[in-house]
């Protein structure tokens, strides 16, 4: 599903964020990418959604070589990957329903399809009752669930979650992880970028550990190793 071959990323003037990273993530996997601050986790996430381009190496997602993806092709890639961020990234002037619908509108989906899908995904994340509220009227956990709902509307094969629980308390963190686990059970690949030890240890799934821009460990049923 996701294939990285000898990927490096160097920022100007000479800051190497990723060094010769190679990995394969199969369809349906739940992979946690862990590491300390500055290990290269966020850079890796940005490369996967084409927010950055690699300095060297090759990246493929679902068989699509996105190493040198054209700017006009980026929206099509992002419609195939569900993206969940720590800071939610919801449109503040749109309601919950509109935020979720927006991801379909930009893809040119019909109004009828939008009216069908949006209530379904809001029901999955348990926010069907709050569809008319604005993001500021929701708790952090609820906002993150809206983001997950938005990431689901295109029925993506991959969801990339970059520190999705970073701004949440323990209870909400568990809710969000349970939700991601549930989505994974339906066959969606989940790439979870996090530094939350408890989350990683409770999952008992594949863990890739980054340090100084390189992979130092890749365990099938791993634990959070960094101290």
């Amino acid at each position, binding site marked *: 599903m996701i294939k990285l071959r000898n990927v490096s990323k160097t920022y100007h003037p000479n800051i190497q964020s990723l060094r010769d990273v190679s990995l394969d993530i199969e369809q349906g996997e739940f992979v946690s990418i862990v590491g300390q601050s500055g290990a290269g986790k966020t850079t890796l996430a940005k490369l996967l959604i084409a927010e950055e381009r690699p300095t060297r190496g090759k990246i493929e997602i679902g068989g699509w070589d996105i190493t040198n993806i054209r700017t006009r092709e980026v*929206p099509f890639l992002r419609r195939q990957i569900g*993206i969940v961020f720590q800071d939610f990234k919801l449109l503040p002037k749109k309601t919950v329903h509109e935020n979720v619908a*927006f991801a379909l509108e*930009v*893809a040119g989906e019909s109004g009828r399809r939008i009216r069908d899908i949006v209530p379904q995904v809001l029901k999955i994340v348990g926010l069907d009752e709050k569809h008319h509220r604005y993001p500021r009227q929701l708790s952090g956990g609820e906002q993150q669930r809206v983001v997950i709902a938005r990431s689901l509307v295109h029925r993506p094969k991959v969801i990339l979650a970059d520190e999705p629980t970073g701004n949440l308390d323990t209870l909400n963190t568990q809710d969000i992880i349970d939700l991601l686990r549930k989505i994974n059970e339906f066959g969606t690949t989940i790439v979870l970028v996090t530094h939350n030890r408890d989350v990683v240890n409770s999952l008992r799934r594949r863990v890739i550990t980054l340090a100084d821009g390189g992979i130092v460990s890749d365990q099938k049923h791993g634990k959070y190793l960094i101290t």
Partner: protein
Amino acid sequence: MKIFVHSHRVFLAAIQNIFRNAWLGIATVIVLVLALTSVNLLVGMNVLIGNAVKLLEQKIDVTVFFKQNANEALVTQAKFFLAELPQVQSVELLQADAALEQFRARHAADAEILSALDELDGNPLGATLRITARAPSDYPFIIDTLKNPQFTDAIESKTYDDHADAIASVRSIGDYARKIGAILIAIFSLIGMLIVFNSIRVAIYTQREEIGIMRLVGASSFFVRAPFVIQGIALAIIALGITAGFVAIGIAWMDPMLTAAYGGDPGLRTYFSQAWPRLALIEGGGLSLLIGVTSWLAAGKYLKR
């Protein structure tokens, strides 16, 4: 089909943006109205100055005083000769008797002048021709024409020589005022454009986060930019409407005062009522184009990836 769905959504998003960013929209409209009003103010001032100069120019004439013994037929011939010149707008002939009558009426309160006239044998005044040219620049030609030997012997004096400097001054003030007016309009338009350019950039800067989010969820460049362009053009149209209202109110308020000061129609109402389609097209079209291009470029700045 998708293009219609997209266009419909882009249009709806623009309308929604206007209402949900109402304060930002109001601030932008105020800036646009100020820029447009200052340009229209200068256009109006230019019209007023131009008309003032035109009024002064219309007051200029040349009066030719014929000798007392000038042949009446010659005077009449001079009148018709001048009236046929394309440079001449009107020629008014005052025969010697009428000239005396007018002189007496003008000095009715001055007993000394009247008694002096009575002491004279007959009419001391000759016939008079008052000539008005189509343009001040035509006077030198008319005066040259009067130097025709056929007429020179019969002419006592001409007033043009006394007014020549004044006519030249009025002409030069008129030309100068028109040039300065055009330059000021150009400068104010440029300043207005810069203000509009910056206010649109600031308005879009405040929404840069949203632009980034739209991009992240897969919005194409067009889908992000187009609502900003439509929103900007809609604000320009609103600003144009408000400015037109201000101009109309300003004219209605000032017209009676200006009419009194000019001693006639100052021409402001006439100018704007005739030129408004052209002004609306230039100002509205220019502003919409400027805002459209600025919005497209400014939004693009936050669309990088």
